[in-house]
């Protein structure tokens, strides 16, 4: 074996202090990258030379007041629904891990019900709640509301999206809680830390590493699901665009405007998610994960370093 290593790799020069490592060329990587870039260029060319895309109209409405206001409402819906969803998710997940079977089943029934029906149906349901309960009576507080006045389209939207999200978040949070070593709960218990603090300060922070990546996906999903509430005439991004193209018939350009805004926000959210993950990776690895730029650099890195003599002699000894 030891003679093979030097003779078969003819180009490797053997110096007095060890082996020289020959770079691997990775020609396949360069070809694949080239083909893909050519395809992208073709698509872009077609898109920008086709007048029917209406790029001037896109540019005009991209920063238009009503789409900007729609964007604000979309963001508001996303944030509020996700906050409700996460709070509910934590509560439901803890309930599902409760020793009390009634509590456990109540949480499971909630998840079953909300996962089992389409969110669009739920939205319409909340919107039409007044048909079911014309007045909302909070008997204990002696308060009474007119359901039609309370359940505005926005309120129905938040209720529908948030309650539905709670069901999905509870599964994510539960997986996170289960991922934490039971020795952690034991150690906290042995130190006399109560259940609430154990959950909040010991278990949840560690569960976050498992919870955050899917929650990021859920947030991005929620951003786009908010477009469903256009059926309730809530003036978010899509509905704002629809209102304009109903008047001007610039359907495609306005759908592009809406899409562009969704992409912009998704991009911002993805970056946020990345740094959040880095934050919660604290203590889990000896080194923090690489930034995206470092990752690209690694991909194209070629092996160009020298093995010290000791490595060589070790190899020879082991043969």
């Amino acid at each position, binding site marked *: 074996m030891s003679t093979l290593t030097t003779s078969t790799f003819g180009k490797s020069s053997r110096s007095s202090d060890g082996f020289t490592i020959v770079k691997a060329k990775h020609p396949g990587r360069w070809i694949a990258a080239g083909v893909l870039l050519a395809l992208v260029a073709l698509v872009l060319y077609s898109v920008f030379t086709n007048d029917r895309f209406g790029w001037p109209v896109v540019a005009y409405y991209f920063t238009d007041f009503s789409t900007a206001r729609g964007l604000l409402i979309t963001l508001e819906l996303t944030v509020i629904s996700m906050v409700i969803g996460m709070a509910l998710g934590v509560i439901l997940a803890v309930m599902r891990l409760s020793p009390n079977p009634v509590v456990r089943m109540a949480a499971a029934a909630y998840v079953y019900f909300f996962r089992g029906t389409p969110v669009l149906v739920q939205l319409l349901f909340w919107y039409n709640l007044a048909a079911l309960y014309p007045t909302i009576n909070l008997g204990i507080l002696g308060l009474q509301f007119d359901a039609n006045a309370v359940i505005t389209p926005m309120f129905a939207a938040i209720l529908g999206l948030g309650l539905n999200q709670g069901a999905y978040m509870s599964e994510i949070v539960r997986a996170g809680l289960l991922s934490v070593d039971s020795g952690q709960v034991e*150690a906290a218990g042995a*130190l006399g830390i109560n259940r609430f603090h154990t959950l909040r300060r010991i278990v949840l922070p560690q569960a976050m590493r498992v919870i955050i990546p899917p929650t990021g996906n859920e947030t991005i999903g929620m951003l786009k699901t908010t477009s469903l509430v256009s059926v309730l005439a809530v003036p978010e991004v899509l509905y704002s665009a629809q209102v304009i193209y109903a008047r001007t018939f610039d359907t495609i350009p306005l759908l592009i405007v809406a899409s562009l805004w969704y992409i912009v926000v998704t991009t911002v959210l993805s970056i946020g998610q990345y740094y959040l993950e880095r934050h919660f990776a604290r203590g889990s690895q000896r080194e923090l994960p690489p930034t995206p730029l470092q990752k690209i650099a690694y991909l194209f890195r070629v092996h160009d370093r020298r093995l010290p003599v000791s490595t060589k002699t070790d190899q020879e000894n082991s043969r």
Partner: protein
Amino acid sequence: MTMQAEPAEAQAASGSNRMIWADAIHKSYGRNDVLKGIDLEVAAGEVVCLIGPSGSGKSTFLRCMNHLETVDDGIMWVAGRVVGYEMKGDRLREQSYAQVCRSRTKIGMVFQHFNLFPHMTVLENIMEAPTVALRQKKSVVRERAMRLLEQVGLAEKAQHYPRQLSGGQQQRVAIARALCMEPSLMLFDEPTSALDPELVGEVLKVMKDLARTGMTMVVVTHEMNFAREMADRVVFMDGGVIVEEGPAAELITNPRHPRTKEFLASVL
């Protein structure tokens, strides 16, 4: 849980310098009887080593002392109080979890696998329980934590995360974490079993220093040298009962019971 202890006996338990009094402890998992009536007394300031073959119930017994396991039958007294129950006349009422937590603050425990909180620095690990469970002031706790880190020889690692430390260092942090609660009793469950042989010494040294301060310690261990050198008493368990107990040197060098002889022959 049956309860026959007379009030007079209860008085005796709190009146003497008895730190632990295990009275006919029974425990089973399903149909597996793990502890079959264990009686043991540990005086304040005493160091007792529990030895015995795997599966003999050492960990289970130790964990009954801070109510990590519930006792099926018999009574466990620690520091003059019944573990896990509130005594009202001749009745024992099960404690709430909050009450259990309060009693545990006086009992330190060190685990085989350290169980440090990986998302907190060494200093945060040590400061967590005193600030959260005892509600002590951060500045006071920090000072004590740093002094303890000094004692276990890890002052310069205060800002490191557990995963950046060796096993021996992690276990020393775990000991400091338990000590920062200023417990009156320390329980160790095979504290050196998960360590590479060359790291065992540094942990044992910390435990020896602790024993010399007069801390009451119950140590489940396979380290016979530690037992011989530091233990006031060694207790040999097998099959859920105490087979033999006695002064360390005597029991280890001159066991009387054949099962003890057999076990010692296999580990020495």
